[in-house]
């Protein structure tokens, strides 16, 4: 692939009151007409874009006190992106970590990500362009310092936001002062990795203090002057359509400012959250419900063979009709995001313009939807993203921003509106349920001669902001559901993987790692079973089926590293057993060993050893933090989590009954080994969610002799 330089023509500069705004245009567009190639890219997580338009994008400001503000097009939801971006920029800009801060780019700054924050590609996608932008800005400052001082540019040295001019120094702020016409050099060469002071080091998170001292940084903390509180009446039944509402009681309640009846929702605006919630409860809405769904209906719909099929991989011969096939089936349930910060927004409509503050992973989509509903220009909608109290894919859809804007317009004041926890659980965009059929044929000497994986899932990425809707027509399948569905054992001679897509009666969408958790649970449980049937050690069995190319070498390396570090053995010792599993997601291979026991009929995960190769770990401490969190979140989904459908209602609707891993369940030891098998950063946030489900299930098999095939794992 050609090196993607930020070209000189794409730089614009804006001066300000003691600030120098550097504006750049990025045009890394996703262009690849070959559909199978596209699917491979989706699976490999290759960064496809930076921005996407031709409008100027504000990246950096230098303040009067010589600090640099980086306007991030990617949002911070805990994944540590702000810290990694700050490290990359600071190293090329030659400023200290205490001289750089990161803010969310508002949509009006122009530096708006056209798609979304997600897919574990924020750091990898910005690795090259952000460092080039920062290096270019450094050179621009040097050129300007040369003009002001007469000192030769090639004799200057730069450190800590100051340019050394022999006997004197100038700060970046002094250099930028009063400059109106900047000279822009071609993108300079980047430093070598070993010259970096911050990249590759475990720098504390840039948002650490704000989060430890309780600063008001989240969407739900946002406010605007003279703000009122809104609430929207939501149905409890799946598929309920709004017919009519009686609002007479609510109209007369204390604190209520206005009740509004729109074609698609009923809203109430009051002077406090409590007053709005109580008035909402008093509104009697008539809903039309056509069918009363049950969990069993959903399970039946999700079976392989019920939806549309798409062949993802087809290698060698089809041996699916031969005798002696080994066959197993697996399922995963409907899962909730359950992020701690409910969805919410503050919206202020002022004539033909709107300002919104909210937690969103899709700034551009939020802007577009609000503009469309109010029939105004997108340029007049300023979306100001806040820190997210958890993302996990839940903030890829923000219809509440539209509702808040409609309510604000109705009362002529800013309106803050957010979900109750019950609404979060019932109106989540769930992790879809899945069903998997696996078939294999072993040779006499214990090798896999044929392997077939058919998996069925509800929507994951259909119509999602990250993937243009037309792609699904082109591709014929859901590019989200297939994450983890590919076979990564390239030495299997005959192979089929088939994705089945079904439409469910409620919305399902992205849940951190998409199909990876469920697909890897099925794949790697089955690989474990095949190893047992072949009489082979599960680690050796896996290694024997991996090809010798670059991808294969990296996968083998993490498998070996995890086995070595954990001291993996395939027999239970003193009531504890180890389970092994591996996956490659978004180009990042990961292997895990779970050490498990069973006590009082409960599955206890004591320790997880994780080996992962994300390429360059820009911040190794935060890569470890992502592994620790993903492992524990994945363990939670493996052992506890599921939503049910009872008489047309999604349930449960509160933490507790929706069982999740708590402190008492979390592994007391998590040992992370990081390998670096490529010379650029790869995906981090989602890949370590892959192996954990099967690693736990495979350990349970070694303790009980039973292979549990349904999530959440339940002992019989």
């Amino acid at each position: 692939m050609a090196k993607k330089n930020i070209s000189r023509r794409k730089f614009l500069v804006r001066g300000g009151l003691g600030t120098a705004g550097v504006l750049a245009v990025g045009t890394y567009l996703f262009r690849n007409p070959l559909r199978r190639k596209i699917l491979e890219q989706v699976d490999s997580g290759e960064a496809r874009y930076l921005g996407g338009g031709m409008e100027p994008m504000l990246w950096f400001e230098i303040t009067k006190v010589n600090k640099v503000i980086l306007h991030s097009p990617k949002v911070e939801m805990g994944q540590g992106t702000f810290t990694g971006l700050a490290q990359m920029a600071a190293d090329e800009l030659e400023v200290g970590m205490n001289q750089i801060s990161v803010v969310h780019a508002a949509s009006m700054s122009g530096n708006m990500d056209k798609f979304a924050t997600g897919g574990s590609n924020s750091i990898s996608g910005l690795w090259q362009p952000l460092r080039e932008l920062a290096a270019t800005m450094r050179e621009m400052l040097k050129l300007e310092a040369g003009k002001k001082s007469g000192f030769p540019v090639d004799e200057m040295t730069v450190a800590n936001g100051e340019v050394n001019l022999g006997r004197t120094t100038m700060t970046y702020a002094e250099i930028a002062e009063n400059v109106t016409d900047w000279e822009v050099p071609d993108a300079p060469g980047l430093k070598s990795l070993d010259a970096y002071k911050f990249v590759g080091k475990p720098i504390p998170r840039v948002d650490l203090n704000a989060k430890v001292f309780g600063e008001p940084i989240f969407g739900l903390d946002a406010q605007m002057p003279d703000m009122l509180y809104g609430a929207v009446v939501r149905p409890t039944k799946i598929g309920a359509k709004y017919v009519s509402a009686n609002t007479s009681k609510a109209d007369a309640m204390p604190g209520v400012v206005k009740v509004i009846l729109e074609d698609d929702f009923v809203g109430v605006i009051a002077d406090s959250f409590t007053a709005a919630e109580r008035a909402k409860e008093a509104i009697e809405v008539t809903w039309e419900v056509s069918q009363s769904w049950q969990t069993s209906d959903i399970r039946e719909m999700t079976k392989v063979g019920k939806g549309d099929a798409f062949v993802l991989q087809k290698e060698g011969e089809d041996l699916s009709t031969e005798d002696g096939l080994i066959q197993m089936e697996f399922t995963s349930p409907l899962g909730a995001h359950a992020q701690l910060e409910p969805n919410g927004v503050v919206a202020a409509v002022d004539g033909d313009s709107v300002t919104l503050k909210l937690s969103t992973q899709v700034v551009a989509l939020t802007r577009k939807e609000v503009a469309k509903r109010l029939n105004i220009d997108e340029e007049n909608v300023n979306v100001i993203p806040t820190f997210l109290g958890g993302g996990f894919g839940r903030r890829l859809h923000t219809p509440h921003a539209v509702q808040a804007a409609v309510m604000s317009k109705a009362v002529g004041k800013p309106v803050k509106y957010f979900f109750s926890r019950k609404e979060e659980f019932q109106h989540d965009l769930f992790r879809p349920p899945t069903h998997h059929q696996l078939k294999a044929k072993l040779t006499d000497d214990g090798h896999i001669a044929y392997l077939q994986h058919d998996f069925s899932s509800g929507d994951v990425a259909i119509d999602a902001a990250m993937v243009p809707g037309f792609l699904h027509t082109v591709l014929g399948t859901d590019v989200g559901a297939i994450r983890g569905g590919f076979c990564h054992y390239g030495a299997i001679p005959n192979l089929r993987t088939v994705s089945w897509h079904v439409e469910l009666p409620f919305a399902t969408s992205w849940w951190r790692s998409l199909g990876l958790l469920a697909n890897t649970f099925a794949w790697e449980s089955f690989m474990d079973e095949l190893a047992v049937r072949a009489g082979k050690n599960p680690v050796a069995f896996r290694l024997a089926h991996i090809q010798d190319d670059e991808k294969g070498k990296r996968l083998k390396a993490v498998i070996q590293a995890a086995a070595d570090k954990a001291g993996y053995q395939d027999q239970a010792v003193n009531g504890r057993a180890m389970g092994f599993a591996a996956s490659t997601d978004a180009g990042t291979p990961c292997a895990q060993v779970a050490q498990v026991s069973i006590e009082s009929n409960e599955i206890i995960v004591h320790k997880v050893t994780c080996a992962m190769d994300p390429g360059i770990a820009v911040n190794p401490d935060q890569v470890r933090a992502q592994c620790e969190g993903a492992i524990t979140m994945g363990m939670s989904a493996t052992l506890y989590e599921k939503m049910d459908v009872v008489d047309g209602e999604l349930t449960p609707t509160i933490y507790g009954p929706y069982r999740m891993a708590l402190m008492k369940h979390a592994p007391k030891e998590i040992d992370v080994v990081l390998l670096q098998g490529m010379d650029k950063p790869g995906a981090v946030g989602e890949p370590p969610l892959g192996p954990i489900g099967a690693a736990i299930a495979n350990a349970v098999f070694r303790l009980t002799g039973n292979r549990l095939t349904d999530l959440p794992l339940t002992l019989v």
Partner: protein
Amino acid sequence: MKISFVLNNEPTTVDIADGTTPLLWVIRDTLNLKGTKFGCGKAACGACTLHIDGVAIRSCSYPASFVEGKTIVTIEGLGTAKNPHPVQQAWLEEIVPQCGYCQPGFMMATAALLHQNPKPTDEDIDQNITNVCRCATYYRMRKAIHRAAELTPEKEATSDTQNS
């Protein structure tokens, strides 16, 4: 109705229309301290944990009128960047937060636990720290809780006045 209490060492009086309003909203919206979070409204997640007379309370389910004459400490009153509480110091050292939304609740629950039990075992932590963290930072939180126990001076841990 008027309600008077001590909030983060400051005598405070609020005048609210409805005394059954959960304390959380008085703290967040009337008094504009946003560090105490709304997570579920049913005392199920612990994001809204603060201290009332030294005890960890889930404020989303605590009527505001009940706080008359009592002493409240929120995350803003626990410590500052210049003078962090041992729990906050430990949280900084272990780099615990990811998204960070639930963390004030966990730190308040931990500070209350250490006040009662200066050297908690893993089992004590399991039984007493029951908040929900979706980023699942439990592994680092456990390390931070043990670290906070080390950082807590003996006399402060057994003293009756917290946050002195």
